[in-house]
């Protein structure tokens, strides 16, 4: 018995455990909180650190010596924007991890597959037909993302899962088709809105909406939880639908869950901030690289890491040429595109 016990210890040494997952996620959560606070001090208007920290710690109930303007910048502009960045980043990274397991391919990413474009078309339709009703935007964006996901899935799926070539080709087809739809709809808009719209399409957090922020946060948290709770099934799905079925995964049901949740995540983040690219590629990749391919750890880690990544990227976007701003999507693509090429060469 003693030898069995010691063997078990040896066997379990290189394996993801609940303990390792909880510790990794706790560390990431602390770093994320730290980033939220620190990034809120940085910007074209520098805020006094101690007073700001005191105000944040009081959850906005005390000004702690900040001027009226400083207080408003902190609580009305910066913190909402940073929280939205976190929600968008967490959503996109989680969705990316979900698509990668579903399509059995580490290159799957909502922006590159055209799914963000599907959500963008949905958002535009909601803007045109339900203008003032902000709540309709994530809903219609979700439908757009879902349709695009189904199209990519049907186009890319082969006998052996989606090969990289097939997947990227499917993504190009869906992306270009939806881009022309976007161009068509844009020409119907009035000229003054086109510029802000182009910015939004590239992924822009400057228009943070009060109504959509709680929606985006709720969807991000709920989506990450649901996918994490299916992580063990996704681990097997990643190795092939047939194998997963043989081993006891209800493949059809899990597939529907991933379709719906990932589309909802992309829909809500695109409705709030446009198409921020490459987050779903970069972050899950880094999570797998540092923590292993087990979705029970890589999905929650990607969710937290995605939030962190977009917060940092957006801080760079709004400070690097201050007082002017770049769309955050430009920064994430600058980091993501080279990594994509590297992964493609390895695939």
């Amino acid at each position: 018995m003693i030898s069995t016990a010691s063997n078990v210890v040896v066997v379990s040494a290189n394996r993801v455990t609940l303990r390792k997952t909880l510790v990794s996620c706790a560390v990431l959560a602390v770093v994320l909180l730290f980033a939220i606070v620190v990034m809120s001090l940085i910007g074209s208007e520098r805020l006094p650190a101690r007073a700001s920290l005191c105000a944040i710690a009081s959850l906005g109930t005390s000004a702690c010596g900040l001027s009226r303007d400083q207080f408003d910048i902190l609580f009305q502009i910066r913190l909402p924007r940073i929280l939205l960045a976190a929600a968008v980043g967490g959503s996109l990274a989680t969705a990316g991890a979900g698509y990668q397991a579903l399509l059995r391919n580490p290159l799957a990413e909502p922006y590159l597959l055209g799914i963000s474009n599907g959500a963008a078309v949905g958002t535009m339709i909601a803007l045109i037909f339900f203008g003032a009703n902000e709540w309709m935007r994530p809903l219609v964006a979700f439908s757009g993302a879902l349709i695009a996901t189904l199209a990519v899935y049907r186009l890319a799926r082969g006998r052996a899962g989606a090969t990289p070539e097939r997947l990227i080709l499917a993504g190009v087809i869906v992306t270009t088709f939806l881009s022309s739809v976007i161009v068509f709809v844009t020409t119907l808009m009035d000229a003054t809105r086109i510029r802000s719209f182009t910015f939004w399409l590239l992924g822009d957090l400057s228009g943070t909406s009060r109504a959509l922020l709680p929606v985006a946060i709720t969807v991000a948290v709920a989506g990450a939880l649901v996918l994490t709770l299916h992580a063990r099934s996704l681990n097997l799905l990643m190795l092939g639908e047939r194998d997963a079925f043989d081993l006891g995964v209800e493949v059809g049901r899990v597939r529907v869950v991933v379709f719906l949740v990932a589309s909802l995540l992309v829909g809500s983040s695109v409705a709030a901030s446009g198409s921020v690219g490459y987050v779903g590629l970069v972050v899950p990749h880094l999570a797998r690289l540092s923590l292993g391919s087990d979705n029970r750890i890589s999905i929650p880690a990607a969710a937290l890491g995605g939030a962190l990544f977009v917060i940092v990227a957006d801080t760079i976007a709004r400070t690097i040429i201050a007082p002017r701003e770049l769309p955050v999507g430009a920064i994430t693509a600058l980091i993501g595109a080279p990594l994509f090429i590297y992964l493609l060469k390895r695939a």
Partner: protein
Amino acid sequence: MLEARKITVSYDHRVAVAAVSVTLKNGEATAIIGPNGAGKSTLLRALNGQIRPSSGTIVLDGEPLERLNRRSISRRIAVVAQEAELRFPVTVLEFILGGRFAWATNAGWGWETDRDLQVAHAVLKETELTELSGRLMNELSGGERQRALMARALATEAPILLLDEPTANLDLSHQATLLSLVRNRCDQQRASALVITHDINLAAQFADNILLMQHGKTIHSGTPAEVLKPHILQEVFDVRVLVDAHPVTGGPRVTPVHETHRQEKGIL
């Protein structure tokens, strides 16, 4: 016990398996042989519930297969299929622990129990993969991966094993090891096995029953001695064969005789 009663499977109006019956009894190994496209793999997929037959029934331990949920089937039937391509880095141990999925009390977010690890450790040893347990699956050779697939099936502890050409990538010694693993499960743990193979002599040595299929139909079924007769094999495989007694086991031994041999050696 797994039993197929006159099952017919068709894809797009093409009949792949026509009214085939097969019974996998406890403690017995059955081999399916037949030319490519005979419907062997389709039959195996139907037995596992992946493809629903258009007529006929499949009964697992007295219950119709379609009434059982996926996880309870997977606890009783394990499949070793031809390997899939791996695009994510997964260690051998993680891969094999996948075989414990159907036993998890919380399927979505469960963690492996000590028992799961003990089982994984035991099958790693059985398949001679203990030293490779921390290696990544895509760093292994074809034969090592094939053994990992076998190990994962054994880790399910399912009493029924369905194997689709499990020895295709294996060298002689590992072929023997793998088949003796399957044989041991049948003899000692009263398991039953169904093995698709192109190696008729392997089937003759290892199986209690042989099912010979062609064009989706059962041509013959019975003991190796009953099925492996020259005129039957010649008709199905369209090649002349020599059947004699195996010098060690005494069972039938099949040797195909090719045209070139005949011309060169002037025999037959």
